[in-house]
């Protein structure tokens, strides 16, 4: 049905007149699990897929009388992330309790930062392709409203057949950074690109491993549509999105759904919807509690979190007891945007290329390793990396680390090509062979398949002569055609079947 996502185009209404265009609005709430040894407020370990309830301290189980103690590493992770996202770091932030009853929330409240979070007012730049050909990239920015520290909940599994719920508290109390992105995006593609960039940044910083499949990065989308010049429409919250690809799908579906609903005279409910990846649509979620009042209250067991910079750092203070924002800033690693710029500058590759390099885990390293071992210019190598290697990897759902073709092998192959020992098409054949992972070197394959380029004139003449001798009919065809003679169809057929 005509309308694509994010399109401002209208279409003809029932009377034939144009309907006003729709402006979709997308904001995101992202929860990133902090990469740390222990939890946000207790000493129990953080580990994926451990036996149920094996990583639960007395505090995590909400035993009466236990108290929270703030984990310094989690604070540092949040400060790093805030700095990388150009936020203002609040030198004083506060902790609050957010109350609701649920089986995976043992204390009956979550400790979060509702009043004054640790970082505010940042921005994230991301790039998209204008079309699908990776030939034109455009840079966009989304504002970061805030980053707050909060506890993760446990996991509950509903066993309807036995009418019971199984609760695993391993995850209860793990540190989260909630990153709130303002509704500056307009479609699934933008949201996906923004989240991908955030993922890369978190992984570069090491503040979160941000693997969506392991629940280390969870994204909820807030979606609404409105006509230009009118106030924002009612928004829905879309949850249960397990990959970046599904994020784009879910958002685009929801935008479509809302537009259709409104154009058919319906209304949008301020509700929470779940993305059903099998059906590719959003469905209303089980109404858990109706309208919730979380009864926020300051967390009385945690004093305000005070951070320092070099100017405000008190003298004679124990370095272990304070977090110095400037110290962290000085030690930030190169962010993806800086990495990409460096790649473009160093190697003369296109910006689009640098995106792909940085986007794919391990690919930059692979590329640079190949460069170390070959004379071929980077601008040519990049083609092999992005067109050949990467497409094979994608076809076979391999990661760079799992590639049967190592950087050594590829470098060898490219050297053969560079030295004009083989042709480009021969090189492609060799690459296909290498991909089989049979342990042969490029040189061995070339010899085996006799793909060497021959420069000896005599040898070449011999080969050509042999071909001509073996294909008399074809030769006649070529000679006749080139001399402009038109053959009768019988002769044509005869020549072709010979």
């Amino acid at each position, binding site marked *: 049905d005509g309308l694509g996502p994010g399109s401002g185009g209208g279409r003809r209404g029932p009377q034939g007149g144009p309907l006003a265009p729709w402006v979709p609005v997308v904001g995101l709430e992202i929860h990133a699990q902090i990469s740390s040894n222990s939890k946000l407020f207790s000493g129990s370990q953080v580990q994926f897929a451990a036996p149920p309830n094996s990583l639960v301290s*007395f505090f995590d*189980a909400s*035993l009466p009388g236990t108290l929270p103690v703030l984990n310094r590493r989690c604070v540092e992770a949040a400060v790093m992330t805030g700095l990388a996202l150009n936020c203002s770091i609040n030198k004083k932030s506060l902790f609050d309790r957010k109350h609701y*009853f649920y089986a995976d929330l043992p204390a009956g409240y979550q400790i979060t930062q509702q009043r004054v979070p640790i970082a505010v007012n940042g921005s994230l730049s991301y790039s998209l392709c204008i079309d699908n050909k990776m030939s034109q990239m455009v840079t966009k920015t989304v504002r970061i409203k805030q980053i707050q520290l909060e506890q993760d909940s446990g996991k509950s599994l509903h066993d309807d057949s036995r009418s019971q719920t199984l609760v695993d508290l391993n995850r209860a109390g793990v540190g989260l950074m909630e990153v709130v992105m303002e509704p500056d995006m307009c479609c699934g593609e933008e949201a996906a690109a923004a989240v991908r960039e955030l993922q890369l940044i978190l992984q570069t910083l090491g503040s979160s491993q941000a693997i969506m499949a392991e629940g280390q990065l969870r994204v909820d989308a807030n979606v609404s549509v409105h006509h230009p010049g009118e106030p924002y429409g009612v928004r829905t919250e879309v949850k249960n999105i397990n990959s970046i690809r599904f994020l784009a799908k879910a958002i685009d579906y929801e935008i479509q759904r809302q537009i259709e609903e409104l154009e058919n005279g319906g209304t949008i409910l301020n509700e929470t919807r779940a993305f059903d990846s099998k059906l590719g649509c959003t469905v209303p979620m089980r109404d858990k509690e109706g309208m919730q009042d979380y*009864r926020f209250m300051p967390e009385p*067991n*945690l*004093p305000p979190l005070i951070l320092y910079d070099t100017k405000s750092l008190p003298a004679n203070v124990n370095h272990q007891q304070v977090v110095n924002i400037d110290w962290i800033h000085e030690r930030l690693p190169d962010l993806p945007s800086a990495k990409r710029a460096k790649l473009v500058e160093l190697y003369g590759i296109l910006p689009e290329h640098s995106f792909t390099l940085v986007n794919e885990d391990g690919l930059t390293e692979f590329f640079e390793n190949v460069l170390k071992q070959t004379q071929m210019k980077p601008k040519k190598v990049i083609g092999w990396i992005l067109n050949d290697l990467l497409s094979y990897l994608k076809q076979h759902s391999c990661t760079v680390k799992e590639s049967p073709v190592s950087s050594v092998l590829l470098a060898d192959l490219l050297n053969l090509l560079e030295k004009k020992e083989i042709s480009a098409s021969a090189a492609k054949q060799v690459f296909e062979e290498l991909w089989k992972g049979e342990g042969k070197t490029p040189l061995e394959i070339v010899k085996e398949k006799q793909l060497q380029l021959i420069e000896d004139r005599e040898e070449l003449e011999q080969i050509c002569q042999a071909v001509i001798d073996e294909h008399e009919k074809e030769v006649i065809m070529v000679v006749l055609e080139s001399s402009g003679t038109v053959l009768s169809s019988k002769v044509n057929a005869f020549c072709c079947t010979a």
Partner: protein
Amino acid sequence: MLRASLRQVSAALKEGQVTPTELCQRCLSLIKSTKLLNAYITVAEETALKQAEESEKRYRRGQPLGILDGIPIAVKDNFNTAGIETTCASNMLKGYIPPYNATVVQKLQDQGAVLLGKTNLDEFAMGSGSTDGVFGPVRNPWSYSRQYKEKSVPKSDSEREEFKWVITGGSSGGSAAAVSSFTCFAALGSDTGGSTRNPAAHCGVVGLKPTYGLISRHGLIPLVNSMDVPGILTRCVDDAAVVLGSLAGHDPKDSTTIQDVFQPFELPSLPDVSKLCIGIPKEYNAPGLSSEILSVWSKAADLFKNAGAKVIEVSLPHTRYSIVCYHVLCTAEVASNMARFDGLEYGHRSDVNKSTESMYAATRREGFNDVVRGRILSGNYFLLKQNYENYFVKAQKVRRLIANDFVKVFGSGVDILLTPTTLKDAVPYMEFIKEDNRTRSTQDDILTQAANMAGLPAINVPTALSERGLPVGLQFIGRSFQEKQLLTVAKWFEKQVKFPMIQLEEVKGA
């Protein structure tokens, strides 16, 4: 021997005049014979005797851990004790055996103290009578004292002795009764609105509320996190100083304890108050204050004057708002703190299991008494989005005003404040229960509550006997973290008034 002070008996242990095991056995025996007082919920006889044995070994080797080694103590049943049932006098935690010790319990244990048992309280420390726990009310030992019996005139033939026993006050009534009846040499209580000082006053013992942040709350099952402190009950001020010394100091497990290193102190044997300025806050002449207590208070002020101290009237103008303010803040925190009791991880779980929610509701209805449930409902009301500004935030602002009253007064040259602790002496149980818990708390907390608002240290010192032969105490309030000065003044006062020892007769029903 059991009537001795903690320091005296500690010296006796050191000199071998008595052994820890003997001491422990005598205390256990006295607990049995005073069972009617209902001061103890759990008596940990086996573990206590074991601890006494260990202590004895150390004394024989000449290597006691310190002054507390072998000393029998009791702990209010809202402190976690590993392996020993901890109930908070509630059905919700009946049978709950914690896997860890509260920091203060651990510290006492590390010093070799002998834990006799867990004492009775109002359910979850909510109350001012120690009458609203599921194990029944605590009886004030003074009900069975000669002093009280001599003064009590039977009003009619039908009035049996059973009906004349008086309350301990609360909520740390069990601990106060345990110390008062000589079954232990010190006891831990908790103090949120006066819960250590109030029963101390009614039971004629010393009740110390330390500065907020001085002693760790880790393992103390909270009532109001921003006001709770562990309280110390002993028979004399010197003993309180000893226990304080063993408990105070930063705990990494409690982020609200101060980082400064605590210096334990000994009180001067001849304290001098002549250089001090004592403040008498006029607002503490509160409505309902008995003329008796007013008179005792006045006499006390004279004592200081005659000793050369400067005694002046001061004003804490926001005192009258403290009860309402406390009501809002306390119930809000209660609603929050009690949210964890859902029957899932520990404690009582209802058999109702149609759904998780119905199980929660039934568990909480069955597990909590009316007082607790009432406070949860109030607290949730105050925390609703539409009410938060008008109630919770407003109450926080009023709290700041109350705290500032003290800052101003202490900043103007006053060293210590002298006030009554309670409005009158202990009432008979039958009279006490005529009013509901909330009404009673509102009435009884008025003189003690503000110190919790401001986080200040305060102490009840038994002063005199009332006309009915029951204890009356006075309260001293000091500057933050100036416990040494506070206790010095209290010790001086204690020496002056020479409060009589209880003449405890047989504790039995009619």
